[in-house]
């Protein structure tokens, strides 16, 4: 069953059309990696899936809720859709644990003690039990991103969106974040991952979308897309980066 349905999605910033008609379905439990050159619209596409960008035209349906329907409460959709950012965006005035506890408490009304137990559980899951009471300033980039993943997971989302989660990390810290993401994929989480990590896309992705100039140019199973791309633009992109 498709948990995300996108139909003819368009997005413009002023006169600049960034997404030029995207139609796509993502099934429950699927791990979809989105690759493409910078400026191709892949991050914008991802940000439209939880309406961090306003949708110019077309339709996005997440878990049966149409995001462009004014009657739909966007906060409810977002509570079901975890997002991980390139620059972590942890709340610097809160400890790691408080970062993780905030949304369950304020959005779902989970009592404090319960949220704390669950929060510690989430931090354990990303291997950071010992950092629960540490402020983000005292964490490494990799640790920050793992807290950010725990924070998103604490809401028990049905879908996780990753926006270049390892692009801002020092090379030696990329691995620990990818490991956490792999575990998540194994558990059956539905994931949409905008990434430059071709190794991850090949190993973990169920499907790879190649975007260029605001459209999905080509999509296939990772092994097929990487070894035998059909479109010239895909070929050129892969030749440059591999």
């Amino acid at each position, binding site marked *: 069953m498709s948990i995300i349905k996108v139909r003819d999605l368009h997005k413009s910033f002023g006169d600049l059309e960034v997404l030029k008609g995207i139609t796509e379905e993502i099934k429950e439990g699927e791990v979809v990696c989105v690759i493409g050159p910078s400026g191709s619209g892949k991050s914008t596409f991802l940000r439209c899936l*939880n309406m*961090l960008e306003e949708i110019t035209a077309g339709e996005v349906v997440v878990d049966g809720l149409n995001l462009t329907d004014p009657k739909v409460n966007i*906060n*409810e959709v*977002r*509570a*079901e*859709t*975890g*997002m991980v*950012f390139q*620059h972590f*965006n*942890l*709340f*610097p*005035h809160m400890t790691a644990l408080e970062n993780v506890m*905030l*949304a369950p408490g*304020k*959005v779902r009304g989970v009592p404090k003690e319960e949220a704390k137990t669950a929060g510690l559980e989430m931090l354990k899951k990303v291997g950071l039990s010992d950092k629960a009471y540490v402020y983000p300033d005292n964490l490494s980039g990799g640790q920050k991103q793992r807290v*950010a993943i725990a*924070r*998103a997971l604490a*809401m028990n989302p049905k879908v996780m969106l990753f926006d270049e989660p390892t692009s801002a990390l020092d090379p030696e810290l990329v691995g620990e974040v990818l490991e956490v993401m792999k575990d998540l994929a194994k558990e059956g989480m539905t994931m949409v991952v905008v990434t430059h990590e071709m190794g991850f896309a090949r190993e973990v992705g169920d499907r790879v979308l190649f975007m260029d100039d605001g459209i999905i140019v080509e999509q296939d199973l990772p092994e097929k897309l990487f070894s035998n791309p059909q479109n010239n633009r895909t070929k050129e992109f892969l030749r440059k980066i591999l």
Partner: protein
Amino acid sequence: MIKSIEFDVRVMTKALPFLLTGMKMTVYFTISGLFFGFILGSIIGLGRTSKNRTLHGAASVYVEIVRGTPILVQAIWIYYALPQLLGFNLNTLAAGTAAIAINSGAYIAEVVRGAVEGVSKGQSEAGRSLGLSKLQTMRYIIWPQAFRRMIPPLGNQFIISLKDTSLFTIISAAEMTQKSQIVVAANFKYLEIFTLLALLYLSLTIPMTMVLRTIERRLDVS
């Protein structure tokens, strides 16, 4: 022949209790005025960050009007002109408090706007992506971070407003400066009394500045 300068400390000690009653009023104006000024400034400042054109426009007009006129004019307008519109008189306490509130409100609005806009966009995106409403995101994520940045400029505004209360002499508010003028009108000891007056202002502003520096240093550390 050089005229010898007379400086009689006893004149100062004698006038001190009288001036201290004025100091109470000065502090009262400052604190109550800034209390309302902070509330006003927060609302106007958030209005200035709003995408809503009416809200943004109204807030901007307020800031421009207040910043474009002297506080002395604002005080006499509130005390003498406003009652003609309202149909009832304001006492000096209310007028002085209102003048500080309205005046500091405009400057605090700019402080609030700057501090809120200084929090990175990623912070509100992270909040919203978790399902928090706009208001919750402001309250739990943006405001606490912005408030830290506000503390130093708010402290400066406190000192500025405190000194501004001296202008309320013109609406006959019984604050420190006005009290000193009453004294000199009787004894003509300008040197002693006005020196004492200046020292009394310094006795308020210097500790305040020191407290402020300490807070700033602490904020830097954490």
